[in-house]
């Protein structure tokens, strides 16, 4: 494992200049693309991608060899006077996955956003490629920043690059979604900024390593921690602060949704991890960690149920993102060591981070597949998906592989993550989170079964594709999904804390056992809560559904109530009030830790 915060970080390390390259290359791409204009933008972006991927891989390789964090001091000024860039194991893993997802999205988006010779230059391709590179550069800044203010600037850069992606097509509802997203994100980042000021006022530095040595639980620090946490939660769209996410993620073009859902929400999540694990591991305490994971658990139940009731595939995936984000927050109480009263960077953190990167790859693949299905059919109504598996087999396969990877079938990253989290839940004797983790897998299987049941069903009339879907686009989606499916085999011990539990027994049997119960549970959920249209009459599930009639009606009532609650929570005043209440709750929950 690479130590999290090395005591001696006042000097730059060899390989530190790679970190600068990781920031500079995408941003130089942005500037060049601006200067070169419409026709060259795509070429510049596509040329930058392998370069950025190579840099990310080089950083991971150097770190794997030296087994130490990489540090670069800007202008050779050491903190607290200067600003440091630091890459630890978490940063290296996140940067590598980001580069991978961005490159796959580049291949995928090539067909949507190109400017063929002889056609007029359009605004959307120009904006898309520049924004994609800008998001990449900003994300790398988030992963490398060594102080809280650089993190603030990076977070804002991510938001500014992500918001226009939502409204690339310029329709009124996507403009509204973008504006909502921007305004709510600004509220979140201002709260983060207030926390930053308070910390600077109390300790005279914002450097993460220096702060972690100086920080102690006084009033200003608690207020700062609560405000920063809540601000970041608003940007991550944790339930109940998710008013902006469903319209933004469902309205963006497929490539944009993939970036937003796979990568952009992970930026603020990553900063929460930095804050809680690196800056102030001893501050939040048991109660606050329970509260944070409680929000995550609520997000899982709420997001999944609303997802199952959606009519459109993209909205279903958007709401499932809400649930998966909740899943990420389950690691916080499991990392809490009651003995030292600190959050420990151990197996739970590794599990949470593995879940993050599994979700990044799988969800990007699923949004791409949904985009291809939308392009092929001309709609994405779930009840109208019949026959699509025959027309677009690779896309449906990519969707299925991404979903299966998220359910947690070995050797997927989500499987390893689940094992680590369950192990941590056992060690810290928090059985209730083990139950929530299992429930998360079942809910994920629920919407997978629902979509696949429709997609695999025979068509009422032969499906004619509206456009020809090039195989490269399907291959990009499938490659990411398969990547998520084998993520558990990668050598994580070099980068992430805690070793992997050695897989025992034949893998096939294990895979079957790990997948069986969630999928059965998921099928039940899908039958109870999903929309089936007239598909029920013929499908073999019809019998099942008919027998479950009374239960289905009860589930429908529950679903409606939850949907109505979702509608209320996604109003501004409700979301704003939740934000303030959560800030107070977090402040109060951190008090007993003093």
């Amino acid at each position, binding site marked *: 494992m690479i130590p999290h915060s090395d005591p001696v970080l006042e000097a730059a390390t060899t390989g530190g200049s790679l970190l600068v390259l990781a920031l500079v290359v995408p941003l130089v791409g942005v500037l060049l693309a601006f200067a070169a204009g419409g026709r060259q933008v795509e070429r510049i972006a596509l040329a930058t991608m392998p370069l950025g991927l190579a840099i990310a891989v080089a950083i991971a390789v150097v770190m794997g060899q030296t087994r130490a964090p990489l540090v670069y001091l800007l202008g050779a000024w050491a903190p607290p006077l200067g600003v440091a860039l630091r890459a630890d194991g978490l940063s290296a893993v996140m940067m590598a996955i980001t580069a991978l997802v961005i490159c796959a999205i580049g291949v995928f988006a090539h067909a949507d956003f190109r400017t063929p010779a002889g056609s007029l230059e359009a605004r959307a391709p120009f904006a898309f490629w520049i924004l994609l590179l800008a998001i990449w550069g900003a994300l790398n800044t988030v992963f490398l920043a060594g102080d809280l203010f650089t993190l603030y600037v990076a977070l804002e850069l991510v938001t500014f690059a992500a918001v226009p992606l939502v*409204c690339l097509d310029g329709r009124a509802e996507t403009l509204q979604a973008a*504006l909502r997203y921007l*305004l709510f994100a*600004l*509220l979140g980042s*201002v709260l983060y900024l207030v926390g930053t000021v308070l910390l600077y006022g109390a300790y005279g530095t914002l450097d993460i390593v220096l702060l972690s040595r100086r920080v102690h639980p006084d009033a200003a620090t608690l207020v700062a921690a609560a405000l920063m946490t809540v601000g970041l939660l608003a940007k991550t769209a944790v339930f109940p602060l998710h008013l902006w996410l469903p319209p933004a993620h469902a309205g963006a073009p497929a490539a944009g949704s993939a970036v937003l859902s796979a990568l952009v929400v992970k930026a603020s999540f990553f900063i929460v991890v930095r804050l809680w694990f690196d800056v102030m591991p001893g501050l939040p305490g048991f109660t606050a960690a329970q509260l944070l994971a409680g929000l995550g658990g609520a997000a899982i139940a709420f997001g999944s149920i609303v997802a199952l009731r959606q009519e*459109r595939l993209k909205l279903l995936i958007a709401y499932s993102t809400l649930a998966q984000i909740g899943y990420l927050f389950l690691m916080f109480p499991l990392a809490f060591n009651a003995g030292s009263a600190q959050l420990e960077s151990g197996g739970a953190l590794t599990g949470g981070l593995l879940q993050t990167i599994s979700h990044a790859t799988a969800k990007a693949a699923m949004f791409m597949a949904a985009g291809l299905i939308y392009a092929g059919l001309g709609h994405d109504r779930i009840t109208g998906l019949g026959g699509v598996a025959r027309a677009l087999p690779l896309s449906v396969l990519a969707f299925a592989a991404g979903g299966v990877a998220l359910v947690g079938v070995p050797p997927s990253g989500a499987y390893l993550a689940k094992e680590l989290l369950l192990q941590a839940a056992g060690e810290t004797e928090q059985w209730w989170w083990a139950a929530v983790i299992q429930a998360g897998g079942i809910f994920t299987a629920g919407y997978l079964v629902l979509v696949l049941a429709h997609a695999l069903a025979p068509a009422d009339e032969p499906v004619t594709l509206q456009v020809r879907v090039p195989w490269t686009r399907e291959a990009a989606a499938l490659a990411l999904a398969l990547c998520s499916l084998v993520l558990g085999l990668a050598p994580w011990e070099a980068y992430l804390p805690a070793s992997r539990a050695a897989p025992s027994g034949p893998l096939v049997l294990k895979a079957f056992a790990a997948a069986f119960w969630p999928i059965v549970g998921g099928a039940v959920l899908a039958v109870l809560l999903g929309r089936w249209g007239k598909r029920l009459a013929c499908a073999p599930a019809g019998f099942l559904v008919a027998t479950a009639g009374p239960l289905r009606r009860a589930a429908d009532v529950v679903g409606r109530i939850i949907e109505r609650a979702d*509608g209320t929570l996604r109003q501004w005043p409700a979301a704003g009030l939740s934000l303030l209440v959560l800030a107070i709750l977090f402040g109060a929950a951190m008090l007993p830790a003093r």
Partner: protein
Amino acid sequence: MSAVTIFGLCAAAAVGLGLYGLITNPQPLRKILAFNLLGSGVFLVFGVVARRGAASGFGGDPVPQALVITGIVVAFSATALAVALLLRLFQATGSATLRAEAPPRTGSDATAA
């Protein structure tokens, strides 16, 4: 009451007013203005922190001033982006409100969605 305290109270008032406006006003333009008020309050806190850190004989701690300039640039860009989006929204729909947004509810009762 020292100048630092007065500035601190003013900052708190600006933050409170901005927060209230941002949450309760339905008009996006007012929300943008409220965000700027909120931001100004936070920048004032930066000023207070700079003065308090100046006890060691300096006229003021320079670091918060450097931070506040960056913060102002960020807030300015955010405002520009928000206003640009608002203008496009106005061009597209003829009204500049977020309220008209029909939440993408797809309950069995919401046939309009």
